[in-house]
């Protein structure tokens, strides 16, 4: 919760003003029964009509002041709650986006998503409520206690004696519920994950007639969530009955002790009666306080989940050289160099083993190899999604761990396997928030062989894509992703198996266009098709995380059996025909 107060701090002045107004409003509220008592006990028996109107008028004035004060204060409270939540959610989103890939994998996306929405929502609600009730309830409580204290201190002490019991049980319940709410929240995560998975796999599920199975699976998750909700609910709802019980037992004891005191002439019956009417105030105030506690435990559970993300240590920091100077590009160094790079996702089995190569500016690197041989992992390392366990990767002679991120990523244009298109226009999907002119975008689409189909779409580049680009075919999506990679003529273009859905003709045209228009750009192409990489300056053949052969097409055909095998399997057929 420390983070929580950090977010409230900037609003402290505004909150104090709001709370002060609330305080005033509540005092006016409290004055009304006092006026009432005066009218009935003192004024009316005297039969002075003018005074009745006078005090009645004061009551109305008090009511007006109370309503105005309370509304203003409530609105200020909403303001503070909204502003602080806005900041909190913003910061959480920023942090989430800058989490390393490994961290994102650990948190899982559905969980991050619900932390950003439901959890911040819980915090929002609590912040508002705390301010609305946080002042009113204590004032009523303290006010009630003070008045009863004046009436009869001994009897008040009896009532006060119940407070430790109350406090202990509220505290105990609140403490117990925080972990319960956390468990409930994580059960919600499970539910969300299941729904999400089902939506993503809806085609497969329908095709395999698994809807009944999925329904049962959801039923399990749903029941688990329900159970968690029930457990948390059962504990929380014990608060009010317990509270009532303690207070009323206290009241009963008050009457008994009152009886003794009256008998001894220390107190009067009338005192006991008014004592009982103020008791209602105290009770209501206590109930409000406990309600705040239960909301608090929910908020605290959510805040804990938020803090977990916010306090996650930034992984893969940009390193500083020992002398504090920024590293500089080395003249004549290869554009990209892998120097004995080894990496493992889980720390057990190496996914990349001792990979080294040099690539000069303007050259093309082709990577080919079996499924799971580490091609994509290699790209992930170059993009610094992960850091190598040993060895280093250099661009222009600088270890990429020392290159500031904006500088590093400016160099790349990337089309990854897991494509990401969002519901916006074609143009915006290509621009992707970068500072790239419409003209450059159009040029990129020409190179990517996308301009033709784009011009056939309604509105051309202003054609709006459906969610995840669902209104495009697989090949069209890939060409948009390639356009994105080529737009703005980056230093390094990476195409990770990003033309697999293109027919050979389009693919060949694409290659020719890139070769012609991107002579100065260093290109890295991961592919299954030999034709896609055959003309590369350097081809790496990967197997089980190692580079088993490297060279040009000619060299590899004569030296590498596996390469020849791949080449024959894809090209040989035509020769036989």
């Amino acid at each position: 919760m420390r983070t929580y107060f950090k977010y409230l701090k900037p609003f402290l002045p505004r909150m104090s003003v709001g709370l002060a107004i609330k305080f005033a409003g509540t005092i006016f509220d409290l004055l009304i029964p006092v006026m009432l008592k005066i009218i009935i006990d003192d004024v009316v028996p005297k039969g002075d009509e003018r005074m009745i109107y006078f005090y009645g008028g004061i009551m109305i004035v008090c009511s007006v002041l109370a309503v105005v004060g309370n509304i203003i204060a409530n609105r200020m409270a909403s303001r503070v709650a909204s502003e602080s939540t806005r900041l909190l959610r913003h910061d959480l989103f920023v942090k989430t986006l800058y989490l390393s890939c490994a961290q994102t994998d650990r948190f899982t996306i559905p969980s991050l998503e619900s932390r950003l929405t439901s959890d911040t929502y819980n915090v929002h609600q609590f912040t508002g409520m705390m301010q609305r009730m946080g002042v009113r309830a204590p004032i009523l409580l303290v006010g009630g206690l003070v008045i009863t204290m004046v009436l009869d201190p001994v009897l008040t002490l009896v009532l006060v004696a119940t407070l430790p019991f109350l406090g202990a049980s509220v505290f105990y319940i609140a403490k117990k519920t925080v972990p319960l709410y956390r468990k409930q929240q994580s059960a919600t995560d499970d539910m969300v994950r299941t729904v999400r998975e089902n939506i993503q796999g809806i085609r497969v599920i329908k095709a395999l007639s698994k809807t009944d199975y999925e329904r049962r699976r959801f039923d399990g998750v749903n029941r688990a969530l329900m159970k968690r909700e029930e457990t948390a609910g059962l504990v929380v709802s014990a608060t009010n009955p317990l509270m009532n019980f303690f207070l009323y037992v206290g009241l009963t004891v008050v009457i008994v002790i009152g009886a003794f005191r009256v008998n001894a002439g220390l107190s009067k019956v009338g005192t006991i009666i008014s004592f009982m009417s103020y008791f209602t105030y105290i009770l209501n105030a206590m109930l409000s306080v406990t309600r705040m506690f239960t909301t608090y435990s929910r908020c605290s559970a959510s805040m804990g989940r938020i803090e977990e993300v916010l306090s996650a240590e930034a992984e893969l920091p940009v390193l500083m050289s020992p002398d504090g100077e920024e590293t500089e590009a080395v003249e004549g160094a290869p554009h990209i160099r892998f120097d004995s790079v080894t990496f493992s996702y889980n720390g057990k089995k190496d996914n990349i083993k001792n990979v080294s190569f040099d690539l000069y500016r303007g050259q093309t690197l082709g990577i080919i190899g079996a499924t799971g041989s580490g091609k994509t992992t290699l790209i992930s390392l170059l993009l610094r999604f992960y850091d190598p366990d040993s060895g280093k990767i250099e661009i222009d002679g600088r270890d990429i761990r020392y290159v500031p991120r904006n500088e590093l990523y400016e160099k790349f244009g990337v089309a990854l396997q897991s494509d990401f298109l969002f519901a916006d226009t074609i143009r915006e999907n290509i621009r992707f928030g970068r500072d790239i002119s419409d003209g450059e975008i159009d040029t990129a689409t020409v190179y990517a062989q996308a301009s033709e189909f784009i011009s056939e779409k309604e509105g051309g580049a202003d054609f709006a894509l459906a969610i995840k680009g669902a209104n495009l075919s697989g090949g069209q999506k890939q060409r948009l992703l390639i356009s994105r990679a080529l737009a703005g003529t980056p230093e390094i273009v990476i195409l990770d198996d990003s033309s697999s859905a293109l027919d050979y003709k389009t693919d060949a045209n694409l290659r020719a266009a890139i070769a012609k228009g991107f002579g100065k750009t260093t290109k890295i192409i991961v592919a299954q098709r030999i034709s896609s990489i055959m003309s590369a300056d350097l081809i790496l053949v990967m197997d089980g995380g190692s580079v088993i052969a490297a060279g040009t097409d000619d060299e590899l055909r004569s030296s590498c059996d596996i390469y020849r095998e791949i080449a024959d399997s894809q090209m040989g057929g035509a020769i036989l025909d």
Partner: protein
Amino acid sequence: MTDAKKTPAETAAKRHKMKMFFRIFGYMFEHKVLVTVAVIIMLSSNAFALAGPYLSGKAIKAIEPGIGKVDFGTVLFYCALMALFYALSSALSYLLSVTMIHLSRSIVARMRQQVFDKLMRLPVGFFDKNQTGDIISRMSYDIDTINASISTDLLQICSSIITIVVSLVMMILISPLLVLVFVVTIPMSVLFTRYKSKKIQPLFRKRSAKLGELNGYTEEILSGHRTIKAYHREETMIDRFDGRNDESIDAYYNADYQGAMIGPTVNFINNLSLSLISMFGGVLYIGGMIHLDAISTFILYSRRFSGPINEMANIISELQSAASAAERVFRLLDTEEEPADAPDAMVLVSPRGEVTAENVRFSYTRDREILHGISFEAKAGKTIAIVGPTGSGKTTVINLLMRFYDQDSGKICIDGFDTLGITRESLCRAYTMVLQDTWLFGGTIAENIAYGKEGATREEIVNAAKAAMIDDYIEGLPDGYDTVLTEDGINLSKGQKQLLTIARAMLPDCSVLILDEATSNVDSRTEIRIQSAMAKLMEGKTSIVIAHRLSTVRDADMILVVRDGSIIERGTHDELLAVRGFYASLYNSQFS
């Protein structure tokens, strides 16, 4: 606006709203017994609590004689009784909470299940139009909001009504004249709450919708986080997120801003009636029309009376937000489903697998036709390949075969039966497929492979994996086949995912196999190594294959060349090469 001037639209909106409340309460009536029990517990708990003041009155009466004359026996007796009654009342109120929690949880679980079942029955196209995050927001936040209202509001309303009625009767008995004060203040309350609720309802609706949008956006962005990193576009995405965040916060604030008025204002109206009562009562006293103790009892009751009215204000704003949430949930529940199977739909039993399409036309949106009259015939056990440039409509053909969509005109038959007249379930059972989009779920690898066949043995699973050439990889994992795939199986390469889905397709017994770019991400050496397995998979089945790698389609019995939604060439590989048409040029381009 007066009632006389109500437009038909408004009356319709009102009727709609009533209908929605009935629908929400409909869920409660399914638990009639539980609801009745809850009401009974509530009444008895209230009764015990209400007995308290009566008993304390008796006790105090016994104290009244004063110094040295207090009747301790009576005092202690009534106090013990009081303690007992309050204990009972507390126990009952806890019991009530338990009942209500159970009730509301059952309702919520049922609603979630209903929504989920609905999702399973919606056409595939629905998910292309609705953000996943928004759907999720309906299942979590919106349903929770409805629940919060169900679990408290009904009981609140019941107990409020009882209190209001009892106090009103008592007040009328004491002084009908003083009750006249309420003739002024009650209409004020009513008018105010009606005016406010009209104003607030759309605000709450917006608040729900905006939260859903925020969820949708978050989902979209987080799924693309790697691409965002690669382009270092975090700042841009944050800017956009801020926009949505602002909208959602503002919507919350606006609803809250208006809502913040309700409580204090109702409180004000109560205070006003209190002031009026004391003035009016004072005047009546001077006129000799009322006794002093009657005024104070009247005031006590009027306090009891205004308590629940105060609560009503809270309930109304809770109902408002529940209504907006319910609207979103019900709208989803009312979305048009996939057309149900015709009543006379037949169940396809062990089909031979002869697939024919006759002049099939189809468009996703009315204005643009995607398929312009496609016809073909796939004899049982034969292999048909569909090739053509991307975007020419190949995947659409598959969508129609599986009935993810229904054609606009023309006919698709299996074994000569129109697919529209076959139950969906039995139709789908006839097919097995490996799609371009590999989909794995968060279970173990074994579960993922066994997905297509319930009760598959471990041996069958391992054999399938071996045939798909993924067994070695799986055995190399620390937990082997019991490795749990997390989050889309993020560290599996796309090719490995594809091999897993191929293994999955090996298990079920079907007569038609659909391969839509099934091996596009598998390297060609592995592809050759799994060829025998693929051949075994295709053995005895009608196979419909979409592929770019023309080497994979060469052996097909019939190749259909699709371009811009029409079949422009058809024949065997050799026949088509001989024609030197579009196919030949496609084929030759892979060697260029």
